[in-house]
């Protein structure tokens, strides 16, 4: 059975495609080095539209109005610019209510776009641009440590990693914050209250790596202006040992935190990249494997939710579970040496 892979790797090659959701301009070129927070592409679009019913304003038929309209598609009009003038001794006129661009003319009407919204797409990881996808974005390559998360609040930043976790099951509380943490990315364990998120915002911190977050805090976490990445799940879960070891041994290093929102269709996952110098290019990891004995796995549901173990054997056929359901399963030896049976669909390969 195919196994999804959750990346927690000390040193690897990371290749990521970064694309705008709409067409725009790419701001970087091939071989250019970028930082995680650097804008690599931008898109602009109209904030809103104004539809002028010229025929009604002039009191004429739509066909007549079309013949009186002076502007064309793509014309840029100033506020109060004359769009059409009626006929007669005291002709009425139609004017642009605001500055904007004409996007459609016909049927006695003029549609204008007014105002402008702009979005910038950031690199998300430090590295080298290896491909430009015209009008859409780029492909970036980087080398270093990689830790994927399960939830992100959609923000990106980079900074010095500071570990405030004594153990994988530590919880972060506001009393642990002080000004020395300003501008850092905090490795903080379980997040159980809003005050902790607010205290980090007040510092301000450059980011938060949490093992888990209480479900009631999710909407507030989305509003925070610093990136928040959750490594293990929603609720009260300790950090899995593989992520804890890798992150804690890289404390005091500069890291990039791309707390991208999980998008299972597009393949976007929140990620931590620890840039590391390499003499040769390490291999890029596989995104899918087949379950096999000896593989390191992470368990995604009770029992042993969040724990890391290794597959001892894949059980033949279907196995009856304590829940009463029957499924393909494997014997997994956990780090505490306990061996349990886990359905394959409840595991992912770590690597």
């Amino acid at each position, binding site marked *: *059975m*195919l196994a999804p892979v959750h990346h927690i790797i000390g040193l690897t090659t990371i290749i990521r495609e970064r694309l705008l959701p*709409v*067409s725009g301009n790419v701001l970087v070129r091939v071989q250019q080095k970028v930082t995680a927070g650097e804008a690599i592409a931008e898109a602009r679009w109209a904030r*809103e*539209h*104004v*539809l002028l019913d010229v025929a009604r304003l002039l009191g004429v038929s739509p066909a007549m109005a079309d013949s009186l309209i002076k502007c064309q598609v793509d014309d840029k009009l100033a506020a109060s610019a004359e769009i059409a003038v009626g006929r007669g001794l005291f002709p009425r006129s139609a004017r642009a209510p605001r500055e904007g661009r004409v*996007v*459609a003319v016909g*049927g006695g009407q003029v*549609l204008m776009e007014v105002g402008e919204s702009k979005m910038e797409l950031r690199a998300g990881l430090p590295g080298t641009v290896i491909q430009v996808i015209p009008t859409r974005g780029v492909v970036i390559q980087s080398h270093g440590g990689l830790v994927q998360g*399960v*939830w992100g609040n959609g923000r990106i930043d980079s900074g010095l990693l500071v570990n405030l976790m004594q153990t994988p099951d530590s919880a972060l509380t506001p009393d642990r914050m002080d000004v020395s943490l300003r501008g850092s990315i905090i490795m903080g364990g379980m997040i159980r209250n809003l005050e902790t998120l607010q205290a980090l915002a007040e510092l301000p911190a450059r980011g938060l790596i949490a093992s888990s977050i*209480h*479900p*009631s805090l*999710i909407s507030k976490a989305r509003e925070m202006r610093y990136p928040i990445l959750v490594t293990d*799940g*929603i*609720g*009260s879960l300790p950090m899995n040992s593989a992520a804890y070891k890798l992150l804690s041994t890289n404390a005091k290093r500069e890291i990039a935190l791309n707390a991208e929102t*999980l*998008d*299972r*269709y*597009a*393949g*976007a996952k929140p990620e931590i990249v620890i840039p590391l110098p390499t003499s040769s290019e390490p291999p890029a990891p596989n*995104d*899918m494997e087949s379950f096999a004995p000896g593989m390191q796995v992470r368990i*995604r*549901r*009770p*029992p042993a*939710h969040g724990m890391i173990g290794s597959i001892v054997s894949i059980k033949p056929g279907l196995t*009856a*579970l*304590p*829940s*009463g*359901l*029957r*499924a393909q399963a494997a014997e997994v030896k956990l780090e505490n040496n306990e061996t349990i049976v*886990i*359905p394959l*669909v*409840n595991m992912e390969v770590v690597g």
Partner: protein
Amino acid sequence: MAASIVTGNSLLALDVGAANTRAALFDVIEGEYRFVACGAAPSTVDAPIRDVSEGARSAIQALQDILKRTMLDVSRSLILPSQPDGSGVDALVVTVSAGPAVKTLVVGLLRDVSLDSARRLTESTYARIVDSMSLGDQRKPEQQIDSILRLRPDMVVIAGGTDGGASRSVQKLLDPIGLASYLLPEEKRPAVLFAGNEKLIEEVRALVGTLASTLHFSSNIRPSLDIEDIPPAESELAQMFVKIRKKQLRGLDILDHWAGGHTLPTAYATGRMVRFLSNVYGSPKGLLSVDLGASSAVIAAGFKSKSVLKAFPQFGQGEGLPGLLQHTTLENILRWSALDLPPDAVLEYLHQKALYPATIPATKEDFAVAQLAAKEALYLAMQLARRDFPKDSAFIKPTLTPLFDPIIAGGAALSDASRPGSSLLLLLDSVQPVGIATVILDQNNLMPLLGAAASVNNILPVQVLESGAFLSVGTIVCPVVAAKHGASILKARVMYENGAEASVDLKYGTIEILPLASGETGRITIQVSRGADIGYGPGRGVKNLSISGGALGVVFDGRGRPLDLPGDPARRRELLQKWNWALGGG
């Protein structure tokens, strides 16, 4: 059915679900079509594979492994038709429910008339209504345009104008849609279905034809103010949905090509099967199919006068699960719990399951929490579906679930045959059926596959249905009655084929079972207390009614309707535990 009518063609049916893809083989055995076996594999809609044909190939591979029969060639393409060496299959049909709910804009002239009909039509597929427009819309046209540009609907469903009626008003509604589509990049333009005044077809074609990704027409779903005719439009909507999915889900075009275009939305295929069964059995009661899976809850009901098909992605047990709390509260979910669970346990489950929709409960406790969410979701889906059941359906009380027989339950949350008692309790609590009915578990989730198969072979579904591929849970007897807890409300005696008898004195607030094994039939005589109604009128029982057995036998649900759970949590949990035990639960 005479064997000579059967052409001897094998048929493979693929169901591409949000969590799993299943491959079921039907073939001719001893002159009749039979369900042979089913293989399953995780769906590959998501990254990194993002190609549904891979999951389908894995499911077919699993089926090959079970049957020791080759169906894929060396390039992993399906062998079609079957070869003299026995490899391959003769036909393929595909159903699909995977993918995000299709964002839909519904448009109608009048909010309570055509807009309501457009909404009902849209609910027959895996859609999420993101905006609606009618003549009563207070927004300016440019605001409507901006709304469409912001929401980027995948699909626009337009109803309005009785045949020969208003035309200018419909055009007025179409203007903002045409303009917004014009402003969208070509690949983002919505598909448009017009199901309104048929005289406007050419004008609709002129106004939005070149601006829609695809333009579809169906007969008017509201030909007059007092007539609604949705089924023909459901068929067009189903085709439109498949076209949208082929654009969204890589690999579906390959499967559709193998299937020769016989791809249907899973919900639509289920609805088709329910319509078919309704016609075949012609029972004065309705026929109900409920299906609860990762992508949605689907309720399909067939009545004498009409059929109703409802797909509710908002109640799916997968990635949208935290959204359940937009429709209910944690307290409402917890009211179904026999365990004293902290609210956080449920809240965390909803979010964790959304992160990993394909995971399953492995522990008893996890199973119990999963059942709570499933029960509340199906309860809500049934409440919503009931709004659109016909007023002339057979019922005991118009405020309760109509009389249905049989009731067919499918989907991952319901159809697991290893715990029929849990499935039945989920069904009894959420659907709250009334009267006497047979309950069937679609343990292999064949309903949609048979519905899809009917499009290429109309003998197959009939023969497979009669072959025992479904698991009968048994007969349920659910009186509508109000009484004091513990009061006798019904006395029943079952006479078995071997002449033996068993009887029960059902007390209000309890569940009782009399044995009647699968494949056996019996005769039941029921006397009810004054005021109790099992579908024959208050106080009226039934004599020597033929009933069929099943995994549980004859189940008497004496809890009354609507099910009124005690407000006191301890008392409620005690009762829930007793009912769970009564049906064999742990």
